[in-house]
């Protein structure tokens, strides 16, 4: 079964450093997402992306964050200057279409630790 893949699975970075988390969505999917889960908290929506632009973002997704689809297969999340509170599991997800009945498929997550 096709799946969303993410790299790295775990990254430790120093506060203030830039981090790029990478994702390969399912190949025929058109909508891409990033969610995050801070340890012990809910899974939270960060951003959705369609047709090479952000379609929706949450209040968490401030100027420190950016997303990009640099080529036909990858979808990246960049955190420009990491803070301690950015430590979390980051999930990439994709869906084939827009709409309520459309299943969103998640990757296995990238665990980011900021020290």
């Amino acid at each position, binding site marked *: 079964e096709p799946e969303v893949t993410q790299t790295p699975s775990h990254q430790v970075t120093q506060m203030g450093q830039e981090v790029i988390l990478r994702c390969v969505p399912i190949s025929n999917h058109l909508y891409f997402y990033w969610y995050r889960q801070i340890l012990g908290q809910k899974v939270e*929506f960060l951003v*959705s992306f369609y047709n090479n632009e952000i379609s*929706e973002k949450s209040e968490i997704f401030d100027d420190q964050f950016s997303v990009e689809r640099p080529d036909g297969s990858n979808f990246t999340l960049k955190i420009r200057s990491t803070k301690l509170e950015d430590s979390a599991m980051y999930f990439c997800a994709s869906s084939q279409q*827009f709409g309520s*009945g459309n*299943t*969103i498929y*998640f990757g*296995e997550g990238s665990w980011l630790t900021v020290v």
Partner: protein
Amino acid sequence: AQSVTQLDSQVPVFEEAPVELRCNYSSSVSVYLFWYVQYPNQGLQLLLKYLSGSTLVKGINGFEAEFNKSQTSFHLRKPSVHISDTAEYFCAVRRGNKLVFGAGTILRVKS
């Protein structure tokens, strides 16, 4: 605004016993509800979803959930659990093109 409440943070249960994981939602419009499971060190996997039609929804691994509009609930059930069902279970409601998750319920199956 749509939101989801999972009433139990942890549910311990013995192997082969039945289990129910509770989920309540708040919404003033039509709802689309999902249960995802996260096994240790893995991502989120879709268990089942309710979009419309029959209120009893069957999913993978023997799980099922019942949509109850009057009680605004979407509880997840399994008649007989296995050790391998130990995981964290998330209820979610679709809001536009994104999911709003509950806080999760950790199911611990003991032998």
